[in-house]
């Protein structure tokens, strides 16, 4: 089974950068195990969280069929990116009025407002999903992880609560994806 994890956002716009950041952290955790096999130490920052484990928890490591990418631009390009993927995991900033850092998991049919109310990308993730559906080009399994974002100023750092939520989500996905593929 091919799994694709995509973190969407603009790293130069405050909390909007949470998607690419999550992708980078998750990729750092998964990459050494994918490349080096069982027992290779995880490189890069080690996020704290309930699952701040190392490779020993899932000795087989995730299969190389798990791919993690950060996506900083036009989400429509994702349609081609997720062609042939069985399971799609999306991570994006969400604006709903909840507390900053609130993390929720949505299905592809969640009532995302198109054009920027929920996602922050012009022709955004919501449009890419809707277009994929209209064209019959959606992966079979889709989950969307939304982290509530509040700060979109150019050059601003992540809101602390959002940064924390990113670390927790990365740890969680690291564990989940490892288990899923070693099962």
């Amino acid at each position, binding site marked *: 089974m091919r799994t694709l994890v995509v973190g969407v956002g603009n790293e130069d716009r405050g909390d909007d950068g949470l998607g690419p950041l999550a992708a980078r952290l998750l990729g750092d955790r998964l990459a050494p195990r994918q490349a080096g096999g069982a027992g290779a130490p995880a490189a890069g920052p080690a996020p704290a969280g309930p699952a701040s484990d190392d490779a020993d928890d899932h000795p087989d490591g995730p299969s190389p069929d798990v791919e993690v990418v950060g996506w*900083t631009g036009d989400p429509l390009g994702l349609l*081609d990116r997720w062609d042939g993927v069985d399971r799609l995991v999306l991570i994006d900033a969400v604006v709903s009025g909840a507390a900053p850092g609130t993390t929720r998991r949505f299905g592809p049919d969640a009532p995302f407002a*198109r*054009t*920027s109310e929920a996602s922050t990308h012009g*022709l955004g993730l919501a449009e890419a999903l809707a*277009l994929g559906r209209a064209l019959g080009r959606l992966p079979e399994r889709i989950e969307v992880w939304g982290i509530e974002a509040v700060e979109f100023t150019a050059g601003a750092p992540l809101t602390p609560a959002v940064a924390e939520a990113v670390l927790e989500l990365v740890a969680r996905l690291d564990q989940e994806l490892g288990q899923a593929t070693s099962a």
Partner: protein
Amino acid sequence: MNAPVPEAPAAGTRRIDVEALARVEGEGALHVRIDGNTLEHVALRIYEPPRLFEGFLRGRHYTEPPDITARICGICPVAYQMSSCHALEAACGVAVDGQLRELRRLLYCGEWIESHALHVYMLHAPDFLGYPSGIHLAQDHRATVEMGLRLKKVGNDVMVVLGGREIHPVNVRLGGFYRLPRLAELRALREPLLRARDDALATVQWVAGFEFPDVEPDRIFLALSHPDEYAINEGTVRTDRGLDIPVSAFEEHVREEHVAHSTALHATVDGDPYMVGPLARYALNYAQLSPLAQEAARDAGLGPVERNPFKSIVVRAVETVYACDEALRIIDQYEPPERAHLEVPPRAGRGHACTEAPRGTLYHRYTINGEGIVLDARIVPPTAQSQSVIEEDVRDVVRGHLDLATDQLQHLCEQAVRNHDPCISCSAHFLKLEVERR
């Protein structure tokens, strides 16, 4: 356009708030105020990160602006990279020529194809066919939208081969590239580009069949122009009123002034508002289009000058044909240069450059010292230059349709803005539209 309106729905106050003006790249707001039968005020408010970037750039090393400014826009990063490279190379007295120049042009063609296809299919065509979005269009016209996405993808593929990746290309540097594309990589683009060119021709036919409002506003066109090629990254700055100046004289003629309603500046050329983009390029450089692109334009019913802003969609499609054609030409004549880049040692000086972003002329100017530190940067993006004309187009639309119901009028206003494919900023996209009737 100011005919009295028999049954204008203007009794009392009407006001519409639209949360977001969809299908425009960027964030901003358009405010229209109508009092009775009189249009009182039109203001396009745009938020413009290039201004912030000018600040970020001061004190940075002269090799950094191509990568930093590429992040201004997720749709046209190549434009920012190219304008900054050319300007900094000019400051250092280096001219990139031969095959490296051709490869840059090829990269730029990729961006034109990608950006134009996105705008034509997903953002603009729905206006003409009565769909609220490209997604609704896709539900009814799946094959057509698939063709548009296929076309867009070929543009992306060109950018990946030359730029290293499609969104913010990382392979571009002062003097050329970090790594040259392999011959096999370029040849592999040939078949997809041939198909893309056919798709682009079909696109011209498709959009030429749309219904267009019959308007021909008299606007000043400004674009880069080059005697030997349809200008993309090099040329003189020309207008259709006879101005023809080197890029270094850009700021002597183009002035920007602050207006209260926007963080963007309003630009004039020799005192008059003007517009940049496909209509301007096409009018000034028709003769340099490839024969195939010219033929497509003629078949679509375009003359050598097209002034109807609604027909910019046809011109964008013609330019897409050209970009495919030109990309094929470059690939077919390509011979690997000896080196991936020229050395560009720093020297104290000032450099200017214009290149043609998909939405129009993009000007960069840098001053650096002998150590290569950026002392001063200036960026004049295309949308800011066209802003006054976009507002004027909206005024025309409102004056001509005061009798329309407010929601229909609002739609026409949105369309008038989208005609210009404005890149109001990138990435956190909120464009609100408010029409207020008194």
